[in-house]
């Protein structure tokens, strides 16, 4: 069990000692040394799905500002590619151009953003008539990935007489993300392996009826989540502190079952001791969601101490599909390293 000052205690309706002794109080017990700090950092990989898209790991030995910086960078500052410019040649569907464009922008794209550079200009200017370009630019293999969407809905001549469902009566009544075809530019055909594609093939993009069609060319660029959420590389990136459940007094019999039910599934197990009595034991505290439900039972509240370990962060990262979650964590650290390095250089140039 970690020392008392390394734990946050959870009361019935409040959480005690949430302050950060090291940075809020500037009264750390030992002198600061970055080398010692770095030596104490530990990582434990808990679980990874077979496709590598979901990852759980523990980051131990850092404080909330460091863990939070990592989380925030995963959400908003690790770059990915997303559709940014859409050159719409035809859209006679019910969904308006701008709404369709917004939908297309949000589609996750499977392409390694590390092989691309950021666009040189943040925004593309407009001319005196309010237009940013007269024709579609060819695209640059270093900056762009281009997808084409070309669908037309027709009546299905082979549909059974009694069919009523649009998907039976018409062809292409629903446009899915699988309709996109990748258009390689320059040497992308050989350079980009595996070939860029949509992460999911079954996202409904629009619905059409006979005679309606959509024809668009979508140019993707590299961007950051802090600019637009479509560039965020993760669905979620969260952390929570490791719960610690300490049973101060033996809980037996009927009370043990009530105790078990007060926690999330799998947290408390019931063992049978040598006298044949049922006794509650902590099986897996990390599965607890810290509802603190146990504290509403007065007879149990005095027998348990609920706390969380202050420097033990249980991270959960779910990639949206461009990179594996483990790669995203590494990229996030690199982003932070690069950011601090750049800032240090810039600070040196403005002060003396």
């Amino acid at each position, binding site marked *: 069990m970690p020392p008392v000052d390394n734990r946050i205690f959870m009361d019935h309706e409040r959480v005690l000692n949430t302050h950060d002794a090291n940075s809020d109080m500037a009264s750390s017990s030992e*002198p*600061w040394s970055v080398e010692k700090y*770095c030596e104490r950092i530990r990582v434990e*990989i808990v679980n990874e799905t077979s496709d590598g898209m979901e990852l759980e790991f523990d980051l131990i030995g850092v404080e909330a500002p*460091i863990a939070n910086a990592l989380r925030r960078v995963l959400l908003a500052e690790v770059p990915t590619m997303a559709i940014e410019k859409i050159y719409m040649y035809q859209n006679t569907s019910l969904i308006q151009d701008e709404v369709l464009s917004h939908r297309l922008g949000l589609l996750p794209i499977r392409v390694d953003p590390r092989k691309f550079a950021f666009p040189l200009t943040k925004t593309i200017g407009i001319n005196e008539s309010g237009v940013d370009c007269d024709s579609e630019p060819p695209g640059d293999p270093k900056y762009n990935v281009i997808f084409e969407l070309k669908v037309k809905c027709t009546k299905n001549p082979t549909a059974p007489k009694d069919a009523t469902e649009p998907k039976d009566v018409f062809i292409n009544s629903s446009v899915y993300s699988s309709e996109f075809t990748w258009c390689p530019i320059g040497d992308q055909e050989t350079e980009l392996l595996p070939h860029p594609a949509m992460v999911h093939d079954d996202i409904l993009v629009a619905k059409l009826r006979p005679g309606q069609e959509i024809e668009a060319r979508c140019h993707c660029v590299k961007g950051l989540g802090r600019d637009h959420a479509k560039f965020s590389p993760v669905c979620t990136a969260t952390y929570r502190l490791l719960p610690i459940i300490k049973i101060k007094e033996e809980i037996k019999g009927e009370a043990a079952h009530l105790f078990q039910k007060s926690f999330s599934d799998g947290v408390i197990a019931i063992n049978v001791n040598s006298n044949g009595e049922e006794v509650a034991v902590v099986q897996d505290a990390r599965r607890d969601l810290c509802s603190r439900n146990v504290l509403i039972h007065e007879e149990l509240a005095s027998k348990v101490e609920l706390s969380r370990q202050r420097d033990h962060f249980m991270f959960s990262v779910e990639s949206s599909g461009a990179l594996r979650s483990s790669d995203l964590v590494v990229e996030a*650290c690199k982003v932070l390293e690069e950011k601090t390095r750049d*800032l240090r250089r810039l*600070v040196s140039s*403005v002060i003396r």
Partner: protein
Amino acid sequence: MATGDTKKNAAEAATSKVEVLDKATYEDDPSCLTIVFHEEDHTIGNSLKHIISRYPEVEFCGYNVPHPLEDKILFRIQTKEGHNAGDCLKRGLKELEQIFGAVRRTFENRMGEFEGKIDV
């Protein structure tokens, strides 16, 4: 002359991202520094504050987001007499880089071990 120009250009490029607030005061008394980081937020502000406020020579360290629609933070350091706030800031940035480097290396090592275990 030419070197002076390049220096000036570098400083100008930096001002778009980093800017010293009330530079004259800082030059007069280097123990107080307020610096503006454009296009930065709590990510770097809070983690940097956390590191710098642990230095014994630092009396105060804090940051502030002046307005949610302005993409910048103000970062302030006040040191004890005889210490330079700018040096503390540079040290803080350097150590923050070391910390995230350590997190990355530890993560990469453990991830390698984890993948090795799965293959077996």
